[in-house]
């Protein structure tokens, strides 16, 4: 156990230990402190334990074997490719948006790690707990890597949240599958699109972390594969009324991504990426990938799609303005417009297709 101020028996001792730590990390004193605030969840652990992968073993075992062999071990290390970042010379707005990107990504990886670890710990089905343990490992590794980039930027993450009161909410397993599967696959599509764009246009690479996007997103891809197989283990999850849930998640995830990206113009401009082009590119890739398990895809080329996203984005901006100014009627109006825009997106007829017998894919973009 490390010497730590909390181990001290007297206040004086605690201060002395803290001083030693502080002088050891003199550079951290001036750091901006950011408290990570992951959320905590429970789910139906009996349902997870009941998952049977025996009829998909030909696809399950190779995936787990690959994850156990850990091809990305040692990849997330800084090497000569990690060039100096000119933080002081960076445009202030870009710096704000980029740090928002790093903190949000670090929190997401960290929360993923907490969720997967909880599923690992509470389950008793060894095949499922092994999978979640492997995914928790990857997420913690990514979080550590992003944390290091944050430290360079003068931002220290604070892991002191455990001593704050935290409430556990509940998600049904199938919602965890839909949301997490899409999140991992869209994450892959987002990172690989930026990585390939910067390969072609290296002058826009304003931070070395983008060089690590390829291996990073390969982990996301593998996690998505695991969730695809979990859904395949129970065909009911992708049939009947659940197809409507799938459509809901596809619409919600795509729309949220569109809104958030359009709120960070300096980030995308610095990368030389047009946000409309980027959104369409990421939706196209994610739709193609999700055909492996979902029986529908969204019709993103329907003229109502782009128009609906623009209305939703506008309503969201208006809502934030109205909230800031305390205009209740305007808030209500913007909320209604946002709701209608979402309904309009959700009611665009989806494209149906036959799901292939073999689910597993390899990253190919």
């Amino acid at each position, binding site marked *: *156990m490390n010497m730590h101020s909390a181990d001290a028996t007297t206040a004086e001792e605690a201060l002395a230990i803290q001083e030693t730590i502080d002088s050891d990390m003199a550079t951290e004193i001036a750091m901006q402190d950011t408290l990570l605030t992951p959320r905590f969840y429970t789910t139906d652990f009996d349902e997870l334990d009941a998952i049977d992968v025996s009829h998909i073993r030909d696809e399950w075992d190779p995936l787990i074997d690959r994850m156990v062999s850990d091809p990305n071990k040692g990849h997330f290390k800084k090497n000569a490719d990690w060039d100096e970042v000119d933080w002081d010379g960076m445009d202030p707005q870009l710096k704000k948006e980029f740090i928002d990107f790093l903190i949000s990504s670090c929190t997401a990886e960290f929360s993923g790690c907490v969720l997967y670890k909880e599923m690992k710990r509470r389950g008793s089905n060894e095949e499922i707990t092994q999978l979640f343990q492997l995914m928790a490992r990857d997420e913690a590794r990514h979080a550590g890597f992003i944390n290091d980039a944050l430290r360079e930027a003068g931002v220290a993450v604070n892991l002191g949240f455990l001593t704050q009161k935290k409430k*556990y909410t509940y998600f049904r397993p199938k919602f965890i599958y839909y949301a997490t599967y899409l999140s991992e696959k869209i*994450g892959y599509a987002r990172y690989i699109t930026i990585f390939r764009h910067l390969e072609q246009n290296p002058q826009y690479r304003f931070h070395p972390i983008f060089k690590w996007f390829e291996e990073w997103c390969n982990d996301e891809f593998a996690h998505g594969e695991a969730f695809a197989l979990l859904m395949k283990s129970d065909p009911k999850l992708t049939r009947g009324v659940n197809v409507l849930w799938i459509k809901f998640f596809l619409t919600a995830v795509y729309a949220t991504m569109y809104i958030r990206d359009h709120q960070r113009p300096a980030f995308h401009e610095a990368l030389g990426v047009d946000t409309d082009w980027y959104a369409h590119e990421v939706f196209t890739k994610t739709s193609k990938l999700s055909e492996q398990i979902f029986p529908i895809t969204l019709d993103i080329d329907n003229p109502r799609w782009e128009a609906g996203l623009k209305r939703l984005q506008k309503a969201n901006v208006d809502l934030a303005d109205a909230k800031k100014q305390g205009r209740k009627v305007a808030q209500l109006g913007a909320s209604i417009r946002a709701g209608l825009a979402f309904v309009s997106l959700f009611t665009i007829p989806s494209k149906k297709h036959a799901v292939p017998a073999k689910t597993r894919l390899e990253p190919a973009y």
Partner: protein
Amino acid sequence: MGFFTRTKEHTPCTVEISHKFESLHAHVRFNNGAVIHPGDEVQVQGPEIMAPFGEIVTEERDAIILRASTIERLWTKATGDLEVMELCEFSFSEEVTL
């Protein structure tokens, strides 16, 4: 646990916080095998636990589990799904402007 009332439990726990380059994580394990249910609240007692960069800190602490009442548990199970989009990662915070 009552239908309308919450109950409080004390349980010893092991906290592990890793602030290393290789792994950034923080976990709490209840030493007596206590299990958390929807709507329960957990608070690790004592001062904030801070791991300096590059280190893993493991501590034995006491945790208080505030057990949700039956009605709260049912409510959390029924409504928790509404927040499920939190599980998705979007690279950026929801703030409209920074």
